[in-house]
Every structure is written in structure tokens, then in C-alpha cells.
């Protein structure tokens, strides 16, 4: 019985994250292409994608390495872009923290923007899921994403030609994220959190090492939490 629900949770995860297939293919291909253009061979490009498995951080590191930036600065900048992963990790902990250590380690490795947003929105919607179901669902959500990340990095590295700019692939990611976040605005507090984060992100866009994103994220989270408290004190429904 448990196996059945776990299997169906896994399958549901696959279905729910499948829209991201459209995003991850061009994104991974682009990384493969750009890495090759930067002089990385196929092995180096593949290991990069498999070990780091974080698109935005990889693009950042690649860009800075080409500009002969000192190694320490490359690392700090790329990791700063990835600091949001620590926030995702914290946000997932109440849901999957009770899973065995090896499962948590596996989930950590595959925590990317897409699996996080698919996972956390499901866990919020269905608080009755068991921990094994959540882990199964999360693994389902990465199944269409992570293997394609590897495969299309390889395709990009092998093809090696520039993807035409007229395809406007740069915008695949913003569209996918906006589409994913929209159904998550369930309360006024969520809306306040998002609007605050957007305003601060735009004001802090000039802050170095992508730290503007982290500042904006924290500001949005504080705004959301304060709004929630305010509604609680008023006794109004959240």
C-alpha cells in the first residue's frame, strides 16, 4: 500500500515538473555551447554540469573565468548566486527533514530552482503527505529535469555552434518561473512578500556578487512574515 502511494507520488512529481522540460533543454544546451566556446573540452563541460548542477552559478563562473578573474572571486560570486539554495534547503527542511540521511543528501544534490518550486508548492497544498511520499514526489520532480540537464549539456558541447539569438532563449527562464509562482499567491502575505522582493531586487540590482538577490529575498520574507503576523493580530483570516 505504501509502495503504491509512493509510486503515485513519484509519478505525480514527474507530471508536475514536466513543463520545465521546455526550459531545461535550451538552458542546458546553451551552457554546453558556451562552455565549449570558452575552451572547455567535452569532459570538463560534463563534469562541470554534473558536479555543480546549478545553471546560473555555472554561467557566472564561466563568464568570470573567461575574464581571468582571480579564483577566489569566481568562487565567491558563483556561490553567492547559489546562496538561494541554502534558503531552499531551509524551506524544505520542515517537509523532508525526517527522511533518512542518504535521502536528504540525495534531495540536497538535486535541489534546483525547478525541483524546489514544484516540491514546495505541492507540500504547501497537501500538508497531509507523508515524508516518504514527499521524498518520492521530489525525486519525481527532478526526474524530467536533472537527466536532461546532463544530456543537453552534452548535446550543446558536441554541437558547439551558437544558438541563434533570435530564439530569445534567455527569456525561457523568467517565463517558466513566473508561471510556476503565480499559483502560489494564496494569501495577501504572499503578495506582499513578492512585491517587496521585486522592489528591493530592482533597487539593489547594482549590489556586487548577486547579493542584491539575497537582500531582496530576505526583505520579501520579512515582509511576508510581518503581514502574516499583522493579520493574525487582527484576527482576520490569513
Amino acid at each position: 500500500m505504501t509502495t503504491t502511494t509512493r509510486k503515485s507520488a513519484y509519478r505525480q512529481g514527474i507530471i508536475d515538473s514536466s513543463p520545465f522540460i521546455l526550459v531545461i533543454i535550451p538552458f542546458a544546451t546553451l551552457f554546453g555551447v558556451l562552455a565549449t566556446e570558452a575552451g572547455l573540452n567535452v569532459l570538463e563541460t560534463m563534469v562541470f554540469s554534473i558536479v555543480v548542477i546549478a545553471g546560473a552559478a555555472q554561467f557566472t563562473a564561466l563568464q568570470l573565468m573567461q575574464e581571468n578573474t582571480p579564483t577566489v572571486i569566481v568562487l565567491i560570486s558563483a556561490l553567492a548566486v547559489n546562496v538561494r539554495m541554502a534558503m531552499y534547503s531551509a524551506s524544505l527542511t520542515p517537509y523532508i527533514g525526517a527522511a533518512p540521511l542518504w535521502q536528504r543528501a540525495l534531495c540536497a544534490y538535486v535541489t534546483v530552482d525547478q525541483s524546489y518550486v514544484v516540491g514546495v508548492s505541492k507540500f504547501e497544498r497537501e500538508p497531509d503527505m507523508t515524508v516518504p511520499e514527499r521524498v518520492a514526489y521530489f525525486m519525481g520532480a527532478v526526474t524530467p529535469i536533472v537527466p536532461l540537464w546532463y544530456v543537453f549539456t552534452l548535446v550543446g558541447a558536441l554541437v558547439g555552434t551558437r544558438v541563434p539569438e533570435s530564439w530569445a532563449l534567455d527569456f525561457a527562464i523568467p517565463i517558466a518561473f513566473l508561471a510556476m509562482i503565480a499559483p502560489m499567491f494564496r494569501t495577501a502575505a504572499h503578495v506582499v512578500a513578492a512585491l517587496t522582493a521585486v522592489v528591493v531586487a530592482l533597487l539593489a540590482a547594482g549590489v556586487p556578487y548577486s547579493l542584491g538577490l539575497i537582500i531582496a529575498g530576505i526583505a520579501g520574507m520579512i515582509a511576508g512574515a510581518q503581514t502574516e503576523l499583522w493579520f493574525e493580530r487582527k484576527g482576520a483570516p490569513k
Partner: protein
Amino acid sequence: MIETGTLWTIIILLGIGSFGLRFVFTGLVGNRAMPDWLLRHLRYTAVAILPALVAPQVMWPTATDGVFDIPRAAAAVVTLTVGLATKNVLWAVFSGAATLYGLLFLLG
């Protein structure tokens, strides 16, 4: 040209660092209860971070060297609006993509 030694150093350290960031809470906090105030903030992680990630790209897209671009901005607005109205991710993605390509073609 990127030096091989530097490249591998960066790949390995970046890999360890990225895993560390992802593992720091799920792995180390695990099943221990986190304080209410922290949980209250974490509930807004997704709706704060992702819009903050997207907003500068909508206003100042890299592809246009940071110049505000009507097709991209319109695509963002349409995606969000359709997403809010239908709660359907695929509809939102397709409407956004159609807006982007439609306007790029028309204004191109």
C-alpha cells in the same frame, strides 16, 4: 583561455560549496524543530526569491544589453496574469511564449 588547473579547482570547490549550501539545513537540521519565527519567514522563500530573481531580467534583459524590451516585459506580464487567472502552469508558459514571439515578430 582558461587554465586547466584553475578550471578543475573551480569545478571541484564550486561543487562542494553548492552541495554544502543545499545540504546545510535539510542535512544538518534534519528532524529537529525549527523556531516558529524562522518557519514563518521560510514560508515566503519561494514567493520572495523567485520574483526577485526574475524582476531584473524582466526590466533589464541581458539579451538586449540591459535595455528595457517591450516583448519581454509584455511576456512577463501575460505569463503572470494567465498564471494567476488559470492557476495552470502550462497555459501560463504558452501564453507567455506566444506573447514574446508574437511581439518579437511584429516589432522585430
